[in-house]
């Protein structure tokens, strides 16, 4: 038998320093590749159909990412996807929806460092960033737990003065538009989104314009956590451009406004008159407050169906 042992020659010190020099040279001439944060429609990551984008700057004024600037048509495509996905999502068992929400929390946990880094990059302190990511994860778990319980809490058997068995149950409102808050770009988004989807609605949401990184990364989390395509669609862009379309689109059944501008909310109210969609304002002063963890948030995007079932005397 021949000896097949491979021997590694020890590199001389001068070779080593030459190699390091080469790396240094490459470094100095290297251009950073800015990640284009793409949007999330129907389980895919397209760019805006308009081809527009804006460059996001860090708190220190350095360019950190290119972000899609969505158009009205992107919004329309997202609503089409949300509409197509909604019925199937609503008919999934409550248990299954809870599992999927829990899975989102798991995937978020696995990528927490990335989210903390992104929050810091957008001006958060590292302590605040850590608290925000952790609370976000906990909040998903909180609403995951409610998935097979809210129906029992809010449904009722009603006494009526005739021979009928009369009962009321909840059904999801349908396609819900969500305008996420500017600050607390991750926690605010998740606190508003989780109760919408746990109740069987599908959602088209517009991320924070000034701090969009986490929402796009969150889309990557959703994509890897069994959430069916189209149930959550995430857009980025200017709120003033898209606000009126969210509220005037006839095929959006409800709009949840989580921002803090009275004028914007007024615009939504005025536009919604033409189509009678449900509008909900959810703008807590503090996204860590207990009011954000409540089953009533789920009730916001539910409709009550009452059935009169004839019975014998």
């Amino acid at each position, binding site marked *: 038998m021949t000896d097949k042992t491979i021997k590694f020659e020890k590199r001389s010190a001068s070779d080593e320093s030459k190699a390091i020099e080469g790396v240094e040279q490459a470094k100095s001439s290297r251009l950073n590749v800015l990640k284009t944060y793409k949007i999330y429609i129907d389980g895919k990551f397209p760019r805006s159909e308009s081809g527009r984008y804006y460059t996001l700057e860090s708190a220190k004024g350095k360019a950190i990412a290119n972000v899609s600037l969505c158009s009205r048509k992107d919004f*329309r495509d997202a*609503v089409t996807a949300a509409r197509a996905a909604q019925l199937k999502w609503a008919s999934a068992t409550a248990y299954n929806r809870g599992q999927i929400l829990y899975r989102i929390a798991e995937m978020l946990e696995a990528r927490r460092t990335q989210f903390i880094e992104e929050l810091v990059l957008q001006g958060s302190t590292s302590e605040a960033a850590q608290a925000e990511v952790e609370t976000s994860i906990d909040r998903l778990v909180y609403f995951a737990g409610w998935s097979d319980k809210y129906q029992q809490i809010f449904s009722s058997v009603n006494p009526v003065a005739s021979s009928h068995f009369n009962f009321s149950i909840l059904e999801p409102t349908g396609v819900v538009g969500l305008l996420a808050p500017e600050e607390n770009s991750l926690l605010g988004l998740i606190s508003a989104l989780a109760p919408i989807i746990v109740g069987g609605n599908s959602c088209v949401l517009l991320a924070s314009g000034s701090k969009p990184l986490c929402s796009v990364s969150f889309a990557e989390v959703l994509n890897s956590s069994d959430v069916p395509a189209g149930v959550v669609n995430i857009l980025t862009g200017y709120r003033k451009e898209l606000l009126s379309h969210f509220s*005037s*689109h*006839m*095929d959006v059944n409800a709009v949840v406004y989580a921002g803090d501008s009275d004028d914007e909310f007024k615009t939504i109210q005025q536009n919604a008159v033409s*189509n009678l969609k449900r509008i909900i304002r959810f703008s807590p002063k503090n996204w860590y407050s207990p009011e954000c963890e409540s089953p009533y948030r789920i009730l916001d995007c539910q409709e009550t169906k009452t059935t009169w079932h004839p019975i014998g005397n």
Partner: protein
Amino acid sequence: MLDLTTLDAKDTDGKVKQLCRKAIRPHDSLPDLPSVAAVCVYPNFVSTAKEALSGSSVKVAAVATAFPSGMSTLKVKLRETKWAVNQGADEIDMVISRGKFLAGEYDFVSDEIAAVKEECGPAHLKVILETGELSTLDNIRKASDLAMEAGADFIKTSTGKIQPAATLPVTLVMLEAIRDFYYRTGKKIGMKPAGGIATAKLALQYLVMVRETLGQEWLSPDWFRFGASVLANDLLRQIVKEQTGVYQSFDYFTKD
């Protein structure tokens, strides 16, 4: 240039009447909108449709000849056709015998079409090739030529019961067959792509193709029809969107 169609085994008089009302007046909040070209029903509903459409410009088309399979004897097919015409059908949509066609018995298919044409009398004859079952574009071209030679007034892609139904390539082949037939004989034949055309945007692509292949003359209900009921609602949705500037929901349009 649109035919509204209801060809379900579960059709009732009520549903046919409802469709006829929609054919005359497609959307209540758009009273100025023109009526559709025709309503397409099974032969037993021809009299119902005729009555519901009386006084309007909407024509009644009946599918005949053992639609959708065409699996019956010539005698039965001819009697069915005759009966539908007597009931008042303005147009007859027949299917060709695809099995015979694929087996190479072209004379059989051709004679059948000619015989049905004779029974039609004043009614227009549309010949459905059922392109989804003809396998190749060569076959589609051959079937188109054959149908036109045998006396078809219109050639139509599909029954709507078989997938794939109308597609752009298939329609182009048929349009070219119509064009060549026109150059050869000077006789104009109509075209009807049916099934699978659900959006206004897709319909526009078909119209462009007709215009480019056959010219402006064919862009009229006499020479071109869409057989697509779903398309009607998308068109309405787009028209209302143009008027209001707001994207619409199917919730606000009648299903049938």
